[in-house]
């Protein structure tokens, strides 16, 4: 099936498109087709410059999402466009909270399947082939759609593509009617709570410093935060310490957390379970500190240090401070 129209879900934070959005647009450009973005929310029109710069020609805005969780209104608007013959052949969605909701709703509305957890996508003989990293990233499963599903929906993990601007001009802005919505649209946001975090975002940082159970105590996580700050990086965590309540889930790296691809990933007191490795083993460089010389994390580390985090981290922090 030839692809002539691609839509990319445009999510935003602080009035800017998220990095996954720009990654998906960059990939969409490689298909040499018409690219539309689809967005919602207050001031969404202000994204048109940046979205255009990454290759979108039109921004389809779902109006009046208001306090609703976006899943239902955005999926309804896309379904409406598809059913009236104005929809995309291909829909690219980031593997995010709202992205998954939208993909699930839309799939059931249109009775089309979804390929999820995609970690690679390429055109082979006119059809799109998706890669999925399975069994802790040791194997790659390749999949494709077999029917004539319209549109083809892919939910893609962050960092699958790298974002490159194209110097396109700002997009047109078009309003996309979600139609009448039923009781499925009844979930409403009453208030938003932002957990204060300074420094770069975990999945955008050039350096990520992560801590695991080998830190021994919640209070020692402050060393991870301090180190991340000194290096202008972001602090991360293994699931073990997220589950233990030391840090919020937003810090988790791995299969059920974030995928990161920084220039350097520093793993402190993390064993390197396969589910952790899938989230970070594509970092350009990996440094691991672990007291167990047999820890699996060393099998992916460019610099492995067999030692005690409680001894090494304070010295490292002192050394970096002395250079300020």
């Amino acid at each position, binding site marked *: 099936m030839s692809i002539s129209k691609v839509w990319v879900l445009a999510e935003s934070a602080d009035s800017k498109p998220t990095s996954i959005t720009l990654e998906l647009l960059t990939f969409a450009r490689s298909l040499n087709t018409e690219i539309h973005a689809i967005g919602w929310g207050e001031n969404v029109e202000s994204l048109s410059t940046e979205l255009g710069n990454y290759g979108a020609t039109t921004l389809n805005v779902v109006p009046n999402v208001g306090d609703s969780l976006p899943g239902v209104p955005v999926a309804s608007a896309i379904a409406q466009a598809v059913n009236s013959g104005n929809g995309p052949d291909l829909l690219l969605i980031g593997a995010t909270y709202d992205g*998954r909701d939208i993909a699930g709703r839309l*799939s059931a509305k249109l009775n089309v*399947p*979804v390929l999820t957890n995609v970690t690679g996508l390429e055109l082979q003989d006119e059809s799109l082939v998706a890669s999925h990293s399975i069994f802790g990233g040791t194997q790659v499963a390749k999949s494709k759609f077999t029917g004539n599903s319209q549109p083809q929906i892919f939910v893609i993990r962050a960092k699958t593509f790298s974002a490159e601007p194209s110097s396109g001009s700002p997009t047109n802005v078009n309003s996309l009617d979600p139609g009448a919505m039923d009781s499925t*649209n009844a979930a409403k*946001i009453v208030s938003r709570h*932002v957990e204060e975090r300074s420094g770069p975002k975990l999945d955008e940082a050039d350096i990520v410093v992560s801590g695991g159970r080998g830190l021994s105590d919640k209070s020692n996580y402050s060393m991870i935060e301090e180190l991340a700050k000194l290096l202008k990086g972001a602090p991360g965590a293994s699931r073990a310490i997220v589950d233990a309540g030391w840090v919020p889930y937003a810090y988790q790296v791995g299969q*059920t957390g974030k995928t990161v691809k920084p220039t350097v990933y520093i793993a402190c007191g993390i064993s390197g379970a396969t589910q952790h490795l899938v989230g970070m083993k594509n970092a350009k460089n990996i440094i691991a500190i672990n007291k167990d010389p047999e820890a699996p994390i060393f099998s992916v580390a460019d610099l*492995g240090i067999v030692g005690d985090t409680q001894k090494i981290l304070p010295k490292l922090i002192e050394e970096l401070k002395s250079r300020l």
Partner: protein
Amino acid sequence: MNVVVCVKQIPDPAAPGELDPNTNNLRRDGKLIMDDSDSYGVEMGLQLAESAGGGEVTLVSMAPNNETSGLRTALAMGAAKATLISDDALSGSDALSTAKVLAAAIKRSQPDLIIAATESSDGYTGTTPVQVAELLNLPAVTFAKKITVEGSSIKVERQTEAGYDEVTCPLPALVTVTAGVVEPRYPNFKGIMAAKSKPVDDLKVSDLGLTAEEVGSTGARQVVFEVVAAEARQAGEKIVDEGEAHKEVVSFLEKLKLI
């Protein structure tokens, strides 16, 4: 308040996973257990039914070979009964066909609340629950880290990129819960004994008014056609700290011009 909790029965995650070389489906022919991710949903369902002062928890599971051992675990925790859909026609189902089956089974008990995990431990597409909600024409709140019932609606703390949103939603509704949302109870001896005689309703695809074409590998309309080994990463230098290893880290970062 009546709650349906979706319980996926999966191969023990401690054992390495395996694909069937002929179909590229996950192998599920060994013993299956309750997905840990669903133990939180079961606990949440039990707590909400208890605090609402009545009602019961019904489990719904789709699994091969009439597997019930994972369901027995959840029944031992306190769920009242279970529905199991097991049918050879289901082999090779994708998330949407799985959702069609679960939705049809859930519809039979007309619950006030449906709970599932945000994603399973073995397939982890994370789309099935929302597909179920849409098929049942219900609102959904995903990624719940806290749920409270307030009359005929629920208040949910939904995890977000930045923190969490407080969301309200009228019942009936579907909610997905994150790991750690509650502390799942361990089944006690009495619970384990009682679970043996709790009813498990066995259903086939045809009992649900679905056709074999809508589910299984035909219904999936997608195929895993190849599995290849991932590129392995080479280990680099490994040193033992004798008091000065932090300097190695510093020079490593210097070489990359990061400091």
